[in-house]
């Protein structure tokens, strides 16, 4: 345990944190799947309105995706622009 430097500990914990942050991808996946399924059944019921259904579905999916992207941004921050590490090195 003595060989672990402080920076090494911060980097390791940041990597674990980035992995945990990406669990946020589960929710948007489920949500987009539900939206796509309902879109498919709507096209089956009314094939004439395919254009409108497609645009509404894509818009809803993109909005549902946002929460997953928050997780992605946090993971990228932890991996490549780590605020914790730069704070420690400045002190």
């Amino acid at each position, binding site marked *: 345990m003595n060989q672990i*430097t*402080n*920076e*090494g500990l911060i*980097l390791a914990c940041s990597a674990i944190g980035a992995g945990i942050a990406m669990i946020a991808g589960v929710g948007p996946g489920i949500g987009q799947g539900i939206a796509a399924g309902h879109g498919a059944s709507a096209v089956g019921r009314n094939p004439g309105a395919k254009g409108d259904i497609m*645009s509404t579905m*894509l*818009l809803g999916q*993109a*909005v549902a*995706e*946002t929460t997953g*992207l*928050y997780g*992605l*941004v946090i993971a*990228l921050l932890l991996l*490549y622009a780590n605020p914790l*590490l730069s704070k420690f*090195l400045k002190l």
Partner: protein
Amino acid sequence: MVNVAANALELQTGVGAMQAVLSSEKSVDFFIHELIPYNFFGQTVYITTTHVCELLIIIGIVIFALVARHKIMHAETVPRGFQNIVELLVETLEKYVHGAMSGHEKKSYVNYVGTIMLFILLCNISGLVGLRAPTADYGTTLCLALISVGMVQYNNIKHNKFRAVTNLFKPIPILFPINLIGEFANIISLSLRLFGNVMAGTVMISLYYTLMPVVATIGIPAALHAYLDVFSGAIQAYVFTMLTMVFITDKMEG
């Protein structure tokens, strides 16, 4: 004293290790590069790759617009060639805006929405020609979102006058803080959505190019580019402009 020296050594090895991690031989390169430093009110700021790519895209759009203007000045009754493309583009954008907005003022938003749409679309697919997509820089997307939300709030005040303030207290006054946060959250969500999507594409593509053997980087990445640059980029340009129009229409109707 020994302790301090040991600590300093530890710190140095730590820094060395971090630099080794960050700049190893096959480092993944999707960062914004600082090209030309200059002095801005006593602070050193940089002309980055984002600025250069944006400038290239703007020059491209301006040249296209000038050529299109020249063509339209000498328009023919039966369009052919380049005039066809320009008319198709303008008509598509007009139909897109008129389909998404309501009210008699929708004609005046074709210019704004069309400009934002073309700029974001060209930014997103600029990865195809080897540029680093400017929308993968949070500075760009934050500014775009600020412009759009400024437009939304301008319409809110223009159409609702005093009700713009009282609407914040609906349906019950105790929800005022939440309504206020909701207005500002639009900036964050609009900008982070665009940034996150394009950044994810950039990271994926640079990871593939760096970590795969050279043989695998010929031909195969075309599929990745088609999905991550073209499809995802077009969807995000569509979503950004569509959400802007939805917000504006929402405020117009009170």
